[in-house]
Every structure is written in C-alpha cells, then in structure tokens.
C-alpha cells in the first residue's frame, strides 16, 4: 500500500430512511477515490443507497481506560430500556 494513501472509514445507508452504518475501512488518495473504492468494495451486491467516507484521523474515539466510568453506571438502570412498553406493529426499525 502506498504510504501517501489515507485510511477512510466507510458508512453505508442500506435503505432510504435508515441510518448510515459503519461497514469497514479502506485506503484512498482523496475523498473522491474513497467514495469510488467504497462503492466497489461495499455496495457491489446492492448493499447501499448512500455512502459516507470519513478520514479515520477525524474520528475521536473513547478511551478504553475510561470504559468503567463511561459505561458501567448504565448497568443497573434497566428501566431505561424500552422493553416496558408495547411497540405498535406499524413501527419498524427500532
């Protein structure tokens, strides 16, 4: 791999109305090429209707060392889950 090429994260929207989901990453020389590579690598079997690419360097990630502080407090708060409500059949994609 050419060292000049930048790593991009790829997000694909599979259908209109759904959110973009992270599907993987790839290398490209610029944003246009990243879209083309994403199209060829991730949508060749009709997986998507929209593509986002983001330079991996632009992503700010949480620190694994802070996982306890960030995520453990949610563990004993089951009442935050929406499982106490009946969801109407007409509502999809929740």
């Amino acid at each position: 791999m050419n060292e000049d090429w930048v790593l991009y994260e790829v997000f694909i929207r599979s259908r209109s109305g759904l959110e973009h989901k992270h599907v993987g990453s790839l290398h490209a020389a610029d944003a246009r090429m990243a879209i083309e590579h994403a199209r060829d690598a991730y949508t060749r079997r009709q997986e998507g209707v929209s593509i986002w690419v983001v330079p991996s360097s632009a992503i700010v990630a949480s620190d694994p060392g802070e996982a306890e502080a960030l995520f453990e407090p949610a563990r004993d708060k089951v009442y935050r889950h929406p499982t106490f409500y009946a969801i109407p059949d007409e509502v999809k994609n929740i």
Partner: protein
Amino acid sequence: MSTAAEAGSAEVSRAERIEYLLRLADTSLVAGQRLGELLGHGPTLEEDLALGNISLDLIGQARLLLALAGRIEDKGRDEDALAFRRDAPQFRNMSLAEQPNEDFAATIVRQCLLDAWQLETYESLTGSREEALADIAHKAVKECRYHWRFSAGWLVRLGDGTEESHARVSAALGALWRFTDELLTPDALDAHMAVCGIGPAPGLIRERWDARVSAVLAEAKLQKPPHQHYPWHGKRGVHSEHLGHLLTEMQFLPRTYPGVTW
C-alpha cells in the same frame, strides 16, 4: 443507385443489424477481457476490485448484445458460441479495445478514451429504433457513467500528479490517440444505421466525445495529440497482432473442453 434501392435505403438487413451489434458487443467483450487480465495485479486491493467490477460490467454488456445478435441471426448461436467460437477476423471490436495494458497509465488512457465513446454511444442508443438494443443501452449507460468517472478521475490524478506519472500518461496518450479516429469516423455501416434510426447521427459522437475528452485532458494538464488517420479498422475485422493473443487466452477453456460447465 436505382430509385428502388434509394427508396429502400431506410430498410436494414438482418446481416447489417448483426454486424452493427457485433461492433458494440465485441468492443465491450475485448475491453472486459483486457481488464480481467489485471485481476490480482492491480496496484492496490481497492483498484483491483474497481478494475474487476468494470471488467464484469463490460462482459455483461457483451453478453446481452451477443445474445441479441444470436437471436437476430437465428442459426442457433448463443452468446457463448459467438464469444468463444469466432476467430480474430470475425471480431468487430474497435482496435483501441484490444491494446495491451502495458502499465497502469496505458490502461487508464485506453479506458478513458473508450469509456467516453461508450458513454456517448449508449446515451444516444437509448433512443434507437432497435428496441432490444435501446433496452441494453439504458442499462449500459449507467455503468458507463461510472466507468468514465473512474477513468477520468485517474487520468487527472496521473496527468496532474508527479513528474513520472505525467510522463507515463503522456506517453500512453501519444501511443493510443491514433486509435480514436476509428471510434469517431462513421463508415458506410455506421452511416446506414443512422439513416435507419438505429445508430447515432453521423458526427454526433465525435462532437460530444471531443468536448468530454478535451475538458478532462485540460484538467489533467495533458496536451491533446494532433489528429491522426488510422489505417486499420477493427470494426471491419482488421486487427492488430494483440487480438489473437487475447482470444487465445480467452477462448482456451471452452475450445479445449467444448460444452464444459462448473
């Protein structure tokens, strides 16, 4: 020419329809095979996938067009028979399509010049009086728009890139430019197809191709080579030495094991 023949000039024979379809089909097939040679040899994994996808688009176009030619011919030849059991002189592809890959710059220049031609040609053929051809063109034109986006993007990147990439792409442009005359100069069959409402109006493709290619050459900081008359005509079955080698490889399996499947 007699009056009767003139009155019938808008009539088109079965042989002419087949001949015209073979020009389109074989150009896609041969270009697809050329790109297929690069599978596993692309400069990066991502480019390997991209070139492979384009190759498959082109072979898919060839398949539809050859199947249509076989149906019109009505002698029991399907797309496989036409692809694998004809020899080089029976192929009607544009000579540009059979030119070898040489280096990545040569591949990109060949695809760029060809993609622009296919894009404008299929765009125009969506209005063809040959309805099955118009249907194929509707599908192909979408693929060709992407092919052009890909190859034109690379042409600009290489032309306006490093000293070496500029030198390589300039050399490839100089070597391949002479094959473009064949794409753009209608011969008697092209002219007849236009009169019959099957093919594009004479001169239309040259005008649009020229505008498209000139713009991208300027963006790529590449000099447009002078016009050159090209003495051979792949579309009439007169090919460079390269086609025979390409067909030997492409046709080896079905010719050695007739009827083989997997």
